[in-house]
Protein backbone atom coordinates (compact mmCIF):
# COMPACT_ATOMS: atom_id res chain seq x y z
CA UNK A 1 0.00 0.00 0.00
CA UNK A 2 1.48 3.33 -1.08
CA UNK A 3 1.15 5.74 1.83
CA UNK A 4 1.65 9.50 2.11
CA UNK A 5 2.12 10.70 5.70
CA UNK A 6 1.99 14.43 6.42
CA UNK A 7 3.30 15.95 9.64
CA UNK A 8 5.32 19.10 10.29
CA UNK A 9 7.16 17.54 13.24
CA UNK A 10 10.41 15.87 12.30
CA UNK A 11 10.27 13.60 15.36
CA UNK A 12 6.81 12.33 14.48
CA UNK A 13 8.00 11.61 10.94
CA UNK A 14 10.92 9.57 12.31
CA UNK A 15 8.56 7.72 14.65
CA UNK A 16 6.07 7.00 11.89
CA UNK A 17 8.80 5.87 9.54
CA UNK A 18 10.04 3.37 12.12
CA UNK A 19 6.60 2.13 13.10
CA UNK A 20 5.30 1.78 9.55
CA UNK A 21 8.38 -0.14 8.47
CA UNK A 22 7.99 -2.37 11.52
CA UNK A 23 4.40 -3.08 10.44
CA UNK A 24 5.60 -4.03 6.99
CA UNK A 25 4.69 -0.86 5.11
CA UNK A 26 7.74 0.13 3.11
CA UNK A 27 6.19 2.22 0.35
CA UNK A 28 5.79 5.35 2.46
CA UNK A 29 6.51 8.96 1.56
CA UNK A 30 6.49 11.94 3.89
CA UNK A 31 5.53 15.59 3.50
CA UNK A 32 6.10 18.30 6.08
CA UNK A 33 3.20 20.58 5.11
CA UNK A 34 -0.13 20.58 3.35
CA UNK A 35 1.31 22.48 0.40
CA UNK A 36 4.16 19.99 -0.01
CA UNK A 37 1.67 17.10 0.23
CA UNK A 38 -0.54 18.56 -2.52
CA UNK A 39 2.51 19.03 -4.70
CA UNK A 40 3.58 15.43 -4.16
CA UNK A 41 0.07 14.17 -4.91
CA UNK A 42 -0.01 16.12 -8.14
CA UNK A 43 3.40 14.85 -9.23
CA UNK A 44 3.01 11.23 -8.15
CA UNK A 45 2.87 8.96 -11.21
CA UNK A 46 1.13 6.27 -9.14
CA UNK A 47 -1.75 7.37 -6.90
CA UNK A 48 -1.34 7.11 -3.15
CA UNK A 49 -3.51 4.44 -1.56
CA UNK A 50 -3.70 5.81 1.97
CA UNK A 51 -3.06 9.12 3.71
CA UNK A 52 -1.99 9.77 7.30
CA UNK A 53 -2.58 13.41 8.15
CA UNK A 54 -1.61 15.47 11.15
CA UNK A 55 -4.16 18.19 11.92
CA UNK A 56 -2.24 21.07 13.45
CA UNK A 57 0.33 22.25 10.96
CA UNK A 58 1.50 25.74 10.04
CA UNK A 59 -0.23 27.10 6.92
CA UNK A 60 -2.80 24.66 5.63
CA UNK A 61 -3.99 22.43 8.46
CA UNK A 62 -4.74 18.72 8.12
CA UNK A 63 -8.51 19.18 7.97
CA UNK A 64 -8.22 21.52 4.98
CA UNK A 65 -5.72 19.17 3.36
CA UNK A 66 -8.17 16.28 3.90
CA UNK A 67 -10.95 18.31 2.28
CA UNK A 68 -8.75 19.11 -0.74
CA UNK A 69 -7.57 15.54 -1.19
CA UNK A 70 -11.13 14.25 -0.91
CA UNK A 71 -12.26 16.71 -3.59
CA UNK A 72 -9.90 15.10 -6.12
CA UNK A 73 -11.78 12.51 -8.22
CA UNK A 74 -8.95 9.98 -7.87
CA UNK A 75 -9.10 10.17 -4.09
CA UNK A 76 -12.83 10.24 -3.36
CA UNK A 77 -12.65 6.95 -1.50
CA UNK A 78 -9.00 6.56 -0.58
CA UNK A 79 -8.58 5.95 3.16
CA UNK A 80 -7.56 9.10 5.03
CA UNK A 81 -6.52 8.57 8.63
CA UNK A 82 -6.10 11.64 10.81
CA UNK A 83 -3.16 11.15 13.14
CA UNK A 84 -3.18 13.86 15.75
CA UNK A 85 -2.64 14.85 19.34
CA UNK A 86 -5.89 16.87 19.22
CA UNK A 87 -8.60 15.04 21.13
CA UNK A 88 -11.40 17.60 21.30
CA UNK A 89 -14.73 16.81 19.64
CA UNK A 90 -14.60 19.84 17.35
CA UNK A 91 -11.53 18.44 15.58
CA UNK A 92 -13.01 14.95 15.37
CA UNK A 93 -16.19 16.39 13.84
CA UNK A 94 -14.31 18.67 11.42
CA UNK A 95 -12.13 15.79 10.26
CA UNK A 96 -14.96 13.41 9.47
CA UNK A 97 -17.00 16.15 7.80
CA UNK A 98 -13.94 16.92 5.64
CA UNK A 99 -13.88 13.29 4.52
CA UNK A 100 -11.60 11.47 6.95
CA UNK A 101 -12.11 7.74 7.18
CA UNK A 102 -10.54 7.31 10.59
CA UNK A 103 -9.05 9.26 13.48
CA UNK A 104 -6.14 8.09 15.59
CA UNK A 105 -4.74 10.06 18.49
CA UNK A 106 -1.08 10.41 19.39
CA UNK A 107 0.70 8.83 21.06
CA UNK A 108 -0.25 5.87 18.93
CA UNK A 109 0.56 2.26 19.69
CA UNK A 110 1.88 -0.03 17.00
CA UNK A 111 -0.99 -2.47 17.47
CA UNK A 112 -3.63 0.18 17.00
CA UNK A 113 -1.88 1.79 14.04
CA UNK A 114 -1.52 -1.65 12.48
CA UNK A 115 -5.21 -2.46 12.98
CA UNK A 116 -6.33 0.83 11.44
CA UNK A 117 -4.00 0.38 8.48
CA UNK A 118 -5.27 -3.15 7.87
CA UNK A 119 -8.83 -1.81 7.68
CA UNK A 120 -7.59 0.97 5.37
CA UNK A 121 -5.86 -1.61 3.21
CA UNK A 122 -9.03 -3.70 2.89
CA UNK A 123 -11.03 -0.58 2.07
CA UNK A 124 -8.47 0.47 -0.51
CA UNK A 125 -8.57 -2.97 -2.11
CA UNK A 126 -12.35 -2.74 -2.35
CA UNK A 127 -12.08 0.67 -3.99
CA UNK A 128 -9.50 -0.57 -6.49
CA UNK A 129 -11.59 -3.60 -7.39
CA UNK A 130 -14.71 -1.52 -7.97
CA UNK A 131 -12.76 1.05 -10.00
CA UNK A 132 -11.35 -1.73 -12.15
CA UNK A 133 -14.85 -3.11 -12.76
CA UNK A 134 -16.31 0.25 -13.78
CA UNK A 135 -13.18 1.40 -15.56
CA UNK A 136 -13.51 4.58 -13.54
CA UNK A 137 -16.10 5.77 -16.05
CA UNK A 138 -19.26 5.36 -13.99
CA UNK A 139 -21.78 8.21 -13.94
CA UNK A 140 -22.15 7.58 -10.23
CA UNK A 141 -19.23 6.90 -7.87
CA UNK A 142 -16.99 3.93 -8.42
CA UNK A 143 -18.61 2.00 -5.59
CA UNK A 144 -21.98 2.20 -7.32
CA UNK A 145 -21.40 -0.10 -10.23
CA UNK A 146 -23.89 -2.55 -11.72
CA UNK A 147 -23.10 -5.14 -9.08
CA UNK A 148 -24.12 -3.09 -6.07
CA UNK A 149 -26.76 -4.87 -4.12
CA UNK A 150 -29.61 -3.74 -1.92
CA UNK A 151 -27.63 -4.43 1.24
CA UNK A 152 -24.47 -2.57 0.16
CA UNK A 153 -23.65 0.50 2.21
CA UNK A 154 -22.74 2.57 -0.83
CA UNK A 155 -21.00 5.85 -0.12
CA UNK A 156 -22.98 8.97 -0.82
CA UNK A 157 -21.00 11.91 -2.10
CA UNK A 158 -21.83 15.58 -2.33
CA UNK A 159 -24.41 15.75 0.46
CA UNK A 160 -23.08 17.82 3.36
CA UNK A 161 -22.26 15.93 6.56
CA UNK A 162 -22.93 12.54 4.97
CA UNK A 163 -20.02 10.16 5.47
CA UNK A 164 -19.38 6.50 4.76
CA UNK A 165 -20.65 3.74 7.07
CA UNK A 166 -17.10 2.87 8.06
CA UNK A 167 -16.29 6.50 8.83
CA UNK A 168 -19.43 6.75 10.99
CA UNK A 169 -18.36 3.67 12.91
CA UNK A 170 -14.89 5.17 13.46
CA UNK A 171 -16.42 8.51 14.40
CA UNK A 172 -18.54 6.86 17.10
CA UNK A 173 -15.54 4.93 18.33
CA UNK A 174 -13.69 8.20 18.78
CA UNK A 175 -16.72 9.88 20.40
CA UNK A 176 -17.05 7.00 22.85
CA UNK A 177 -13.60 7.92 24.16
CA UNK A 178 -14.11 11.64 24.56
CA UNK A 179 -17.80 12.32 24.75
CA UNK A 180 -19.23 9.07 26.01
CA UNK A 181 -22.89 9.81 26.51
CA UNK A 182 -23.63 13.20 25.00
CA UNK A 183 -24.73 11.94 21.64
CA UNK A 184 -27.60 9.95 20.23
CA UNK A 185 -28.58 8.23 17.01
CA UNK A 186 -31.71 8.48 14.91
CA UNK A 187 -32.49 5.78 12.36
CA UNK A 188 -34.30 6.35 9.07
CA UNK A 189 -35.69 3.63 6.82
CA UNK A 190 -36.95 3.89 3.24
CA UNK A 191 -40.19 1.93 3.29
CA UNK A 192 -40.66 -0.92 0.80
CA UNK A 193 -37.03 -0.50 -0.14
CA UNK A 194 -36.75 -3.90 -1.83
CA UNK A 195 -39.56 -2.94 -4.20
CA UNK A 196 -37.86 0.35 -5.08
CA UNK A 197 -34.57 -1.42 -5.59
CA UNK A 198 -36.01 -3.97 -7.99
CA UNK A 199 -38.23 -1.51 -9.88
CA UNK A 200 -35.44 0.96 -10.59
CA UNK A 201 -32.05 0.94 -12.23
CA UNK A 202 -29.05 1.05 -9.91
CA UNK A 203 -28.41 4.64 -10.88
CA UNK A 204 -32.00 5.62 -10.15
CA UNK A 205 -31.88 3.83 -6.82
CA UNK A 206 -28.63 5.61 -6.02
CA UNK A 207 -30.23 8.97 -6.90
CA UNK A 208 -33.13 8.06 -4.63
CA UNK A 209 -30.94 7.42 -1.60
CA UNK A 210 -29.00 10.62 -2.31
CA UNK A 211 -32.33 12.48 -2.28
CA UNK A 212 -33.25 10.91 1.05
CA UNK A 213 -29.81 11.73 2.48
CA UNK A 214 -30.22 15.32 1.36
CA UNK A 215 -33.62 15.61 3.05
CA UNK A 216 -32.32 14.02 6.28
CA UNK A 217 -29.50 16.54 6.25
CA UNK A 218 -31.88 19.47 5.68
CA UNK A 219 -34.16 18.40 8.51
CA UNK A 220 -31.37 17.78 11.01
CA UNK A 221 -28.82 20.40 9.92
CA UNK A 222 -29.53 22.70 12.87
CA UNK A 223 -27.63 20.32 15.17
CA UNK A 224 -24.69 19.57 12.86
CA UNK A 225 -25.38 15.85 12.50
CA UNK A 226 -23.17 13.23 10.91
CA UNK A 227 -25.16 10.93 8.65
CA UNK A 228 -24.36 7.64 6.93
CA UNK A 229 -26.13 5.23 4.62
CA UNK A 230 -25.88 1.68 5.94
CA UNK A 231 -27.48 -0.22 3.04
CA UNK A 232 -31.01 -1.66 2.54
CA UNK A 233 -32.52 1.80 2.70
CA UNK A 234 -31.26 2.47 6.24
CA UNK A 235 -29.67 5.71 7.37
CA UNK A 236 -28.39 6.79 10.74
CA UNK A 237 -27.79 10.36 11.93
CA UNK A 238 -25.63 11.02 14.96
CA UNK A 239 -26.94 14.06 16.82
CA UNK A 240 -26.35 15.70 20.19
CA UNK A 241 -28.29 13.95 22.92
CA UNK A 242 -29.97 17.19 23.90
CA UNK A 243 -31.88 18.69 21.00
CA UNK A 244 -35.30 19.98 20.18
CA UNK A 245 -36.37 17.27 17.73
CA UNK A 246 -39.85 15.88 17.96
CA UNK A 247 -40.19 12.41 16.48
CA UNK A 248 -43.59 12.90 14.84
CA UNK A 249 -42.74 16.32 13.52
CA UNK A 250 -39.50 15.03 12.03
CA UNK A 251 -41.30 12.13 10.32
CA UNK A 252 -43.80 14.59 8.88
CA UNK A 253 -41.11 17.04 7.76
CA UNK A 254 -39.02 14.40 6.04
CA UNK A 255 -41.90 12.88 4.15
CA UNK A 256 -43.31 16.26 3.18
CA UNK A 257 -39.92 17.33 1.83
CA UNK A 258 -39.60 14.06 -0.08
CA UNK A 259 -43.08 14.57 -1.58
CA UNK A 260 -42.08 18.05 -2.65
CA UNK A 261 -38.85 16.87 -4.22
CA UNK A 262 -40.89 15.15 -6.98
CA UNK A 263 -38.35 12.42 -7.52
CA UNK A 264 -38.35 11.16 -11.10
CA UNK A 265 -36.38 8.16 -12.30
CA UNK A 266 -34.46 8.09 -15.57
CA UNK A 267 -37.64 7.10 -17.46
CA UNK A 268 -39.38 10.17 -16.10
CA UNK A 269 -41.60 8.11 -13.81
CA UNK A 270 -42.43 9.47 -10.38
CA UNK A 271 -41.38 7.23 -7.54
CA UNK A 272 -43.61 7.51 -4.56
CA UNK A 273 -41.62 6.61 -1.50
CA UNK A 274 -41.81 7.18 2.21
CA UNK A 275 -39.32 7.12 5.04
CA UNK A 276 -40.00 5.93 8.56
CA UNK A 277 -38.09 7.56 11.37
CA UNK A 278 -37.09 5.81 14.55
CA UNK A 279 -37.12 7.36 18.01
CA UNK A 280 -33.92 8.93 19.27
CA UNK A 281 -31.58 6.29 20.72
CA UNK A 282 -29.27 7.69 23.36
CA UNK A 283 -25.73 6.43 23.76
CA UNK A 284 -25.07 4.54 26.94
CA UNK A 285 -22.23 5.47 29.21
CA UNK A 286 -21.30 1.83 29.48
CA UNK A 287 -22.60 0.82 26.08
CA UNK A 288 -21.24 -2.33 24.52
CA UNK A 289 -19.62 -0.64 21.53
CA UNK A 290 -20.09 2.02 18.91
CA UNK A 291 -21.85 -0.38 16.57
CA UNK A 292 -24.49 -1.16 19.16
CA UNK A 293 -25.86 2.38 18.93
CA UNK A 294 -26.06 2.20 15.14
CA UNK A 295 -27.72 -1.21 15.25
CA UNK A 296 -30.34 -0.06 17.74
CA UNK A 297 -31.08 3.05 15.68
CA UNK A 298 -31.49 1.03 12.48
CA UNK A 299 -33.77 -1.50 14.17
CA UNK A 300 -35.92 1.14 15.78
CA UNK A 301 -36.69 2.71 12.41
CA UNK A 302 -37.98 -0.49 10.79
CA UNK A 303 -41.67 -0.24 9.92
CA UNK A 304 -41.62 -3.87 8.85
CA UNK A 305 -39.17 -6.73 8.91
CA UNK A 306 -36.35 -5.88 6.51
CA UNK A 307 -33.50 -8.17 5.52
CA UNK A 308 -30.41 -7.07 7.45
CA UNK A 309 -27.99 -4.71 5.72
CA UNK A 310 -24.54 -6.11 5.04
CA UNK A 311 -23.24 -3.66 7.64
CA UNK A 312 -25.76 -5.03 10.20
CA UNK A 313 -24.73 -8.61 9.49
CA UNK A 314 -21.03 -7.81 10.06
CA UNK A 315 -21.81 -5.77 13.16
CA UNK A 316 -23.95 -8.55 14.66
CA UNK A 317 -21.24 -11.12 13.95
CA UNK A 318 -18.66 -8.87 15.61
CA UNK A 319 -20.95 -8.36 18.61
CA UNK A 320 -21.36 -12.12 19.02
CA UNK A 321 -17.62 -12.76 18.82
CA UNK A 322 -16.79 -10.08 21.44
Amino acid at each position, binding site marked *: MKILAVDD*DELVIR*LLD*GKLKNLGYSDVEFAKSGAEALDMIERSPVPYQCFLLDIRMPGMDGVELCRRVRAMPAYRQTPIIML*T*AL*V*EKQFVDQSFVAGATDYLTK*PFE*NLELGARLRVASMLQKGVSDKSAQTGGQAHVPADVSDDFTLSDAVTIHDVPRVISALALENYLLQLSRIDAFRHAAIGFQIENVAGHFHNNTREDFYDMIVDVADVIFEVTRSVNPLIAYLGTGSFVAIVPRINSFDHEEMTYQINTELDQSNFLNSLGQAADFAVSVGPQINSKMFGRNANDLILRAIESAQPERQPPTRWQSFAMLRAMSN
Partner: protein
Amino acid sequence: MAGLSEDMAPDDRLAATLADVRARLQDKLDWMICGIEECKKEMADPLMRPGAMQAIAEIAHKISGVAGSVGFSDLGNAAAKIDIGFRKAAQEAAPAYPNDTLMADLETLLDQMEAAIEQ
Protein backbone atom coordinates in the same frame (compact mmCIF):
# COMPACT_ATOMS: atom_id res chain seq x y z
CA MET B 1 19.56 7.63 11.01
CA ALA B 2 22.41 6.86 13.38
CA GLY B 3 22.48 3.30 14.75
CA LEU B 4 20.13 1.93 12.11
CA SER B 5 21.01 -0.46 9.36
CA GLU B 6 18.88 -2.18 6.74
CA ASP B 7 19.89 -5.68 7.87
CA MET B 8 18.63 -5.23 11.45
CA ALA B 9 15.69 -7.38 12.60
CA PRO B 10 12.41 -5.37 12.37
CA ASP B 11 11.92 -5.17 16.14
CA ASP B 12 15.55 -4.18 16.75
CA ARG B 13 15.20 -1.53 14.10
CA LEU B 14 12.05 -0.17 15.73
CA ALA B 15 13.73 -0.18 19.15
CA ALA B 16 16.65 1.76 17.68
CA THR B 17 14.27 4.27 16.08
CA LEU B 18 12.45 4.79 19.37
CA ALA B 19 15.75 5.28 21.21
CA ASP B 20 16.86 7.77 18.57
CA VAL B 21 13.61 9.76 18.76
CA ARG B 22 13.73 9.69 22.56
CA ALA B 23 17.26 11.11 22.55
CA ARG B 24 16.29 13.81 20.04
CA LEU B 25 13.28 14.78 22.15
CA GLN B 26 15.49 14.99 25.25
CA ASP B 27 17.89 17.25 23.32
CA LYS B 28 15.03 19.57 22.42
CA LEU B 29 13.55 19.77 25.91
CA ASP B 30 16.22 22.21 27.10
CA TRP B 31 15.36 24.94 24.64
CA MET B 32 11.65 24.14 24.99
CA ILE B 33 11.95 24.87 28.73
CA CYS B 34 13.69 28.15 27.91
CA GLY B 35 10.93 28.94 25.42
CA ILE B 36 8.19 28.34 27.99
CA GLU B 37 10.03 30.45 30.60
CA GLU B 38 10.27 33.31 28.09
CA CYS B 39 6.57 33.01 27.31
CA LYS B 40 5.72 33.03 31.01
CA LYS B 41 7.38 36.45 31.28
CA GLU B 42 5.60 37.72 28.17
CA MET B 43 2.23 36.65 29.55
CA ALA B 44 2.43 39.45 32.10
CA ASP B 45 1.90 41.94 29.27
CA PRO B 46 -1.76 41.78 28.13
CA LEU B 47 -0.73 42.70 24.59
CA MET B 48 1.76 39.85 24.32
CA ARG B 49 -0.33 37.39 26.29
CA PRO B 50 -2.34 35.77 23.44
CA GLY B 51 0.81 35.05 21.41
CA ALA B 52 2.72 33.81 24.45
CA MET B 53 -0.10 31.48 25.48
CA GLN B 54 -0.40 30.19 21.94
CA ALA B 55 3.36 29.58 21.83
CA ILE B 56 3.22 27.58 25.08
CA ALA B 57 0.37 25.52 23.62
CA GLU B 58 2.44 24.87 20.48
CA ILE B 59 5.44 23.64 22.47
CA ALA B 60 3.19 21.42 24.59
CA HIS B 61 1.52 20.10 21.45
CA LYS B 62 4.87 19.04 19.99
CA ILE B 63 5.76 17.22 23.20
CA SER B 64 2.40 15.52 23.60
CA GLY B 65 2.57 14.06 20.08
CA VAL B 66 5.80 12.21 20.73
CA ALA B 67 6.55 11.78 24.44
CA GLY B 68 4.10 8.96 25.12
CA SER B 69 5.53 6.88 22.27
CA VAL B 70 9.09 6.99 23.63
CA GLY B 71 8.50 6.10 27.26
CA PHE B 72 7.57 9.49 28.71
CA SER B 73 3.84 8.94 29.32
CA ASP B 74 3.61 11.32 32.29
CA LEU B 75 5.33 14.04 30.30
CA GLY B 76 2.99 13.39 27.36
CA ASN B 77 -0.09 13.63 29.60
CA ALA B 78 1.12 16.82 31.28
CA ALA B 79 1.84 18.34 27.86
CA ALA B 80 -1.58 17.37 26.49
CA LYS B 81 -3.25 19.13 29.42
CA ILE B 82 -1.30 22.33 28.74
CA ASP B 83 -1.90 22.11 25.00
CA ILE B 84 -5.67 22.05 25.50
CA GLY B 85 -5.78 24.51 28.42
CA PHE B 86 -3.57 27.20 26.92
CA ARG B 87 -5.00 26.89 23.42
CA LYS B 88 -8.54 27.36 24.73
CA ALA B 89 -7.51 30.27 26.93
CA ALA B 90 -5.57 31.94 24.10
CA GLN B 91 -8.61 31.84 21.81
CA GLU B 92 -10.55 34.27 23.96
CA ALA B 93 -10.75 37.84 22.68
CA ALA B 94 -8.66 39.32 25.49
CA PRO B 95 -7.34 36.38 27.45
CA ALA B 96 -6.90 36.84 31.16
CA TYR B 97 -3.72 35.69 32.90
CA PRO B 98 -4.05 31.89 33.29
CA ASN B 99 -5.67 30.83 36.56
CA ASP B 100 -3.74 29.14 39.37
CA THR B 101 -4.76 25.64 38.30
CA LEU B 102 -3.48 26.14 34.77
CA MET B 103 -0.26 27.72 36.02
CA ALA B 104 0.21 24.80 38.44
CA ASP B 105 -0.27 22.41 35.51
CA LEU B 106 2.37 24.36 33.61
CA GLU B 107 4.82 24.00 36.49
CA THR B 108 4.10 20.26 36.52
CA LEU B 109 4.92 20.12 32.83
CA LEU B 110 8.18 21.99 33.39
CA ASP B 111 9.08 19.56 36.18
CA GLN B 112 8.30 16.60 33.94
CA MET B 113 10.43 18.09 31.17
CA GLU B 114 13.38 18.51 33.53
CA ALA B 115 12.92 14.97 34.83
CA ALA B 116 12.83 13.59 31.27
CA ILE B 117 16.14 15.29 30.44
CA GLU B 118 17.74 13.45 33.36
CA GLN B 119 16.39 10.00 32.44
